[in-house]
């Protein structure tokens, strides 16, 4: 991993992801705020749409490759690409080179893009060496490790290191933090009863921590867990961890802005 020196001002493309774009733009703005605080020049390429993960995971390889080429063309002109989602970042970093390996033109471009694409918290912590300053939120929270970020990108300590710098924030360990929440993209709507059984156990574990907030790095997982918690009458409120890190943890939680 290339570590930029803090005096650099890299041109960083924010790939905001479909779910953030359509369901919770605050995550996008929190990412911009944190990246700028970390000394980056943030650009949001207008032509971005979807990384193709739904097609990839449904087996529609042709569409996945198609969307990958488009995304590569949109994102490759920048120094770094930052994504506020472990699963979308993994799609670009891990899967784009895999699915385009056979393509003599786009394979190398996919590899080049992968090398400079990061999940947002990993980028801030490991590439920028940055921690938030002057951010305070005196609440308790618990952190769920989303599977793609954890297993495909090694995201585990970075969010916790960043959150540790939020004054007054106490992280309580989640029993089974690394256990899948049952979202799985289209899985949760194709096999809803199984998904419900899985997220039901996850929600019970979250409630058992007694924490005020649920945090994670993937909006799909958060929607799944928060949606279940809310349906079951739990008072736990959910945020994407980057929102707290960017000092926006005092705003409306998921499902609170009408």
């Amino acid at each position: 991993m290339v570590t930029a020196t803090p005096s650099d001002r890299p041109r960083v493309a924010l790939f905001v992801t479909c779910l953030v774009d359509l369901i919770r733009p605050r995550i996008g703005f929190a990412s911009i705020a944190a990246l700028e605080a970390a000394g980056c020049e943030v650009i949001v390429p207008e032509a971005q749409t979807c990384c193709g993960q739904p097609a990839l995971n449904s087996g529609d390889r042709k569409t996945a490759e198609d969307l990958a080429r488009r995304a590569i063309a949109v994102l490759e002109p920048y120094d770094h690409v930052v994504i506020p989602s472990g699963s979308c970042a993994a799609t670009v970093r891990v899967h784009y080179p895999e699915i385009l390996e056979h393509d003599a033109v786009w394979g190398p471009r996919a590899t080049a893009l992968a090398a400079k694409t990061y999940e947002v918290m990993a980028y801030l912590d490991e590439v920028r060496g940055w921690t938030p300053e002057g951010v305070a939120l005196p609440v308790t929270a618990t952190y769920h490790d989303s599977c793609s970020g954890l297993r495909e990108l090694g995201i585990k300590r970075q969010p916790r290191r960043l959150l540790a710098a939020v004054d007054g924030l106490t992280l309580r360990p989640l029993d089974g933090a690394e256990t899948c929440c049952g979202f799985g993209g289209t899985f949760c709507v194709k096999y809803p009863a199984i998904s419900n059984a899985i997220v039901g156990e996850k929600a019970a574990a979250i409630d058992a921590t007694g924490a005020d907030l649920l945090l994670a790095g993937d909006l799909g997982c958060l929607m799944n867990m928060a949606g279940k918690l809310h349906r079951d009458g739990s008072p736990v409120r959910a945020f994407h961890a980057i929102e707290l890190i960017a000092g926006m943890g005092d705003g409306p939680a998921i499902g609170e802005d009408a």
Partner: protein
Amino acid sequence: MSAPATAPTADTFDTRVAAALADRNLKLAVERTAGTAEAKRTLAVDAFPDFEAARDRAAAIKDHVVANLGHYLERFEANATAAGAKVHWARTAQEACDIVIGLCKAANAKSVARSKSMLGEEIGLPHALAEAGIVRIETDLAEHIIQLSGERPSHIIWPAMHKTREQVSALFKTSHRNPHVEESIAAMAESARRHLREGMLAADVGISGANFLVADTGAVCTVTNEGNAELSLVPPRMHIVTAGIEKIVPSTGHAVHMLRMLSRSATGAPLSQYTTFYTGPKRPGDRDGPEEMHIVLVDNGRTAMREDGLVEMLRCIRCGACMNHCVVFRQIGGHAYGGTYPGPMGAVLTPAFDGLKQSRDLPNACTLNGKCQEVCPVRIPLPTLLRGWREKSWREGLEPASLRSGLGAWAWFARRPRLYRAATAAALRSMRLMGRSGWLSKLPLAGGWTRYRDMPKPPAESFMAQYKKGRRA
């Protein structure tokens, strides 16, 4: 590719899942076995020096064998034959069963004692024995239980994990000659020990699988914790082994490494109670042992897997760690999968054995979370293999039309950024009409979601729309 099951599964994945999710006993049973195995494995792995390097080695050993499988099979055959065993080859499940039944008939066998073998289950051996009128004595306690209940295994290590003690007690009281009186598990196990002993020792033929086939020596290795394999395979005059061709290891030394990985991954134990290497039939002067030993090497789709992008699946040593750690398996148990093998490894293997059209739900009913790959002692990239089945399913047009058109529409817009913005803006406007508060509890076309969960109400404008208008924070 597989022979008919002992109990036909005419129902669908969805109906089996619904039944499983409604079964409180099943959930308790799964936590007691798979949940305990998860905890024990973690302890064993933490106590083992450099488990990650050990996994690399185990994967490399299996890859080396599979890459040179023809060579090793011939070497195994030569050494087993030199030790006095007879080696047979079977392309299909049917051929394998025909060989076994043929051997039993030639030996005039009225009964066979069986030690647990998932491969035997895969090729439909119980059914073939029944058809041939040969009495089948299952000596593994769990296999004995499911023989009494007429079921298939629900886990590859604990075939009867889905049964409660009350159910087992009832089965034993009906079927055992001298059943337990005290309602304790120890008493039940004692009843099975008594009931099975005589038949087991009097069987004409003993049939086993193989955990490993050792190429250098021609030995067949079995691993048990009950000692039933030895009691089934030593007394009869004929020992028949049915084993998948991928069970080969180069030498006993390689088997030792794999054995260290196997029991830790399966149950968390450093080693199982009984590890036996059988090399040929009894020797002159031996007081016990079979007169004849037959080893049936079974292909049944394994050479095809090597060619069809499933070669890593041939590393599998049947430890069961993947299913123990699978969030889907932990909710639905083993029978819901409907095939010989459940869990992640079953989701990869069943389409290969039974055809993708019939079993396409299995690779799809997975969140691709990757825990299975993380715990696999031989690093099988299970999510990648499952995604491969999804790709094949898509190419063959097996996915439902609603999914194809939904994804097709999504992709169409995703290729056209301006239209994407317009379409999603329209979608946001209509979704916002679905509810007053920040949450939506009902959503057309998303019943699967809202049946169980609320959906956060989307914003009035997308991120991209707001950004374009100049919002930055």
